[in-house]
Each structure stands twice: as structure tokens, then as C-alpha cells.
């Protein structure tokens, strides 16, 4: 407790709790620091269990909207690829993220279909609310995730062209936003694949970096049979209905509670036997190569 001088570790004694979480009437020592707004999925309910002495109903009171089943299936698949059955994160070079958030569009505004002859199968306006992204979560990659219903047997590969445009959301008029600027993607969908990820990182980076809470985008996907690589003529549209895409954000959570794999990788290399100092400052992911200074030499002498 603070009354006895320095806290064991200089981690903030408070835990970050979600604003809507009922646990905010906690012991003042556990109150989150002023700036903290949103909580981490796991901490508020843990706190609730601790503050609910004696009760057994630890049901987390925060009501949760049910997620889309396809989105749930995709995230379970991502979990299996990222962690073991016991929940231990798998070590892999490409796996730099420690947080992945999947958002389904909170509202969509159907565009009228333009001329089908051009194969314009699917265009829709989507609104994603990113309130759950915390200020300490930095964007690594973002993709639009389309799921194809592969129950319909498709004879040949499909080629799709996707036009994406984002617009400042004009709250005054609920009419769908007009196109602000767009980027064209072309993607080649093999018949059997269930999911298609369209990388929109460069597109959304500036919006997410400015802590934008609502992202309004118009997506226009045109899919045609045939395969341009084998210069087969693109014939008529596939007639396949596309489900509105989800937005997937791969993030690096820089908070204390999150797992920083480069930290543990680097630490286990330097002094494996000594237990890690709890208040060890986060190691720079680029490492301190090249910072050869007197202190560095003394430390390496000490290590020897």
C-alpha cells in the first residue's frame, strides 16, 4: 500500500477498468489512473470476482451483444493458429501482434446496384465503431475479411475487383456518404477458399492513428468468372451474393498487461537463470544495438 513508501513495482497500482464496468466503485487504491478510459477484456471481471466477496454468481454483468457466427468461426481458427490448447502463445517470427480485434459493421447502407452487365455484384456502405481499440494499441495491419459461401459449387476461379472509399461521416445527414477517394484492389479468389482478406492497412492507418472512433466506408466488389492470368475472357457475373465484410485489426498492445514477445525473447537470451525484474523497463524492440557506451561496457564486464 502506498502508505508504506514505494510500491513493490512501479507498475501503476490501479488496474485499467472499462468505463461501463460496474466494478468502478472499487477501493480507491485500485481506481484507474485518470487517463485510462477503456478496459482490457480480462481485468474488469477478475476485479469483480475479487470485489464480490462471498457471492458465487460471478457472471460478468456487462451485457454482450452476440457476435456474427462466421466471425466467431474465423477468430477460433486464428486462435488455434496463434496459441496452443493450453492457451500459450506460439512463438513465431511473423506473429508480431499481441492483439487482434474483429469488428462487424454496425450498420450498412445498401447502394443501388449499378449495371449488372459490368458484373457489379456487390456494393455497400459500412460503418465500423472502433470504440474498443485502446490508445495503447498500435495498428500493425488491417484487412477487410470477406467470407465466401462455398456451398455453391463454382466451376472455375473467380476474379474480383474491389473499390474502397472512405468518407468523413457527416452526422447531420444520415444519407449514405458520397465517395471521398477510392483505392482499387484486384484479388484472385480460388474456388475453395472460404475467406478472403483484403489488406487495407495503408488506407486505414491515418484514420486509426488519429484515434478515429467511427470509420465509414463504401465497398464495391465486382466478381467475374474466369481467370485474367490465363487471359480467359471475363464472362458474366458470378451471381454470388457477398456477405458484408468484417474489419480485422492486427494490433500491438504496448500496455504492461499485454505480452511483449520481443521482450521475453531478448530477456531469455541475456540472463536466463535470474528471475525477470518486475519493473524492468520495456526493452526497445529494435534492441540497444550500437549504444556502446561506458555503461554498456561495464554491464558486459559484469556479465562476464
Amino acid at each position, binding site marked *: 500500500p502506498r502508505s508504506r513508501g514505494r510500491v513493490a513495482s512501479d507498475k501503476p497500482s490501479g488496474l485499467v477498468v472499462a468505463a*461501463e464496468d460496474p466494478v468502478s466503485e472499487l477501493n480507491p487504491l485500485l481506481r484507474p489512473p485518470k487517463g485510462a478510459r477503456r478496459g482490457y477484456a480480462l481485468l474488469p471481471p477478475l476485479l469483480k470476482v475479487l470485489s464480490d466477496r462471498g457471492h458465487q454468481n460471478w457472471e*460478468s454483468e456487462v451485457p454482450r451483444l452476440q457476435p456474427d457466427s462466421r466471425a466467431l468461426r474465423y477468430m*477460433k481458427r486464428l486462435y488455434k493458429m*496463434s496459441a496452443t490448447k493450453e492457451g*500459450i502463445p506460439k512463438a513465431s517470427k511473423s506473429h508480431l501482434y499481441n492483439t487482434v480485434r*474483429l469488428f462487424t459493421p454496425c450498420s450498412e447502407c445498401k447502394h443501388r446496384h449499378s449495371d449488372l452487365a459490368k458484373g457489379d455484384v456487390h456494393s455497400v456502405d459500412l460503418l465500423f465503431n472502433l470504440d*474498443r481499440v485502446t490508445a495503447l494499441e498500435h495498428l500493425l495491419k488491417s484487412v477487410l475479411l470477406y467470407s465466401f459461401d462455398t456451398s455453391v459449387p463454382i466451376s472455375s476461379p473467380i476474379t474480383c475487383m474491389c473499390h474502397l472509399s472512405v468518407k468523413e461521416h457527416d452526422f447531420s445527414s444520415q444519407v449514405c456518404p458520397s465517395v471521398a477517394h477510392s483505392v482499387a484492389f484486384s484479388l484472385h479468389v480460388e474456388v475453395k477458399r472460404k475467406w478472403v482478406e483484403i489488406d487495407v492497412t495503408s488506407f486505414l492507418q491515418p484514420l486509426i492513428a488519429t484515434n478515429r472512433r467511427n470509420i465509414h466506408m463504401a465497398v464495391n466488389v465486382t466478381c467475374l468468372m474466369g481467370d485474367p492470368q490465363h487471359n480467359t475472357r471475363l464472362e458474366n457475373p458470378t451471381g454470388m451474393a457477398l456477405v458484408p465484410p468484417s474489419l480485422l485489426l492486427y494490433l500491438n498492445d504496448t500496455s504492461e498487461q499485454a505480452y511483449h514477445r520481443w521482450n521475453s525473447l531478448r530477456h531469455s537470451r541475456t540472463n536466463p537463470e535470474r528471475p525477470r525484474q518486475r519493473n524492468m523497463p520495456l526493452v526497445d524492440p529494435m534492441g540497444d544495438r550500437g549504444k556502446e557506451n561506458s555503461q554498456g561496457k561495464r554491464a558486459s564486464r559484469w556479465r562476464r
Partner: protein
Amino acid sequence: DENPKEAPAAPPSNLSEYFKQFLFPQNECELHNFRLSFSQLKWEKWIIAPHRYSPQYCKGDCPRAGGHRYGSPVHTMVQNIIYEKLDPSVPKPSCVPAEYSPLSVLTIEPDGSIVYKEYEDMIATKCTCR
């Protein structure tokens, strides 16, 4: 040796008895298994994975002199001496986790979005006396 006149302490009659006090306690400090499922906390509706979680814990007595065995600093022995010789209100060293491993959790957020998160320090993997 403040008073050299004092006769040197007589060697202990029974050496094995004497050394017994430095042996490791029967229920020495070590890592114990504990496994829970989030359904016991009725959280399975919003914690989708993992189904089982083994946080483990440390339990047992710390040896009086054995600092080196647990990677304990010398302070641990000093604290023991304080407890035994100077002030019993100062607690004996405790058996606590020294190292942890992370845990990946898949949860449903209140707004219906789904988040995969890796949390630091969720599973105790090594114990120490401090």
C-alpha cells in the same frame, strides 16, 4: 569474537542432528498444479478460448539458509535472521512465483466485437523465496 575469554563453543554432540536444521523443509517451497475452466466462473459465454487455464501457484516453507537454491538474493537470509534473532514481527521469507508465462485469450467484447489478446504473467512457471 567480542569476549575472547569465553570458551569456544563445544562441537555439537550429534552432527547429523546439528545439520538437520539446515536441511530443506519437508514441504519445501515449490510449484503446484492448479487447473480451472472458465465455466466454473460462469464466464464461458464471453471467454471463448482457452477452455481450460492452469495458472499454477507456489506453496511451501522456505529453507532457513538455502538462498542459492531458489535464486534468492542474500537479503532473503538477512530477513530470516531478522525474523529469528531480532524481531519476530518481521515476516519470514515467503514462497512466491519468480517467473511467469503469458496466456492467449479469445473474448467477446460488450459491443459484440471479438478480441484475441495475449496477456503477460498469467501462468506461474517457477518459484522463489523472497
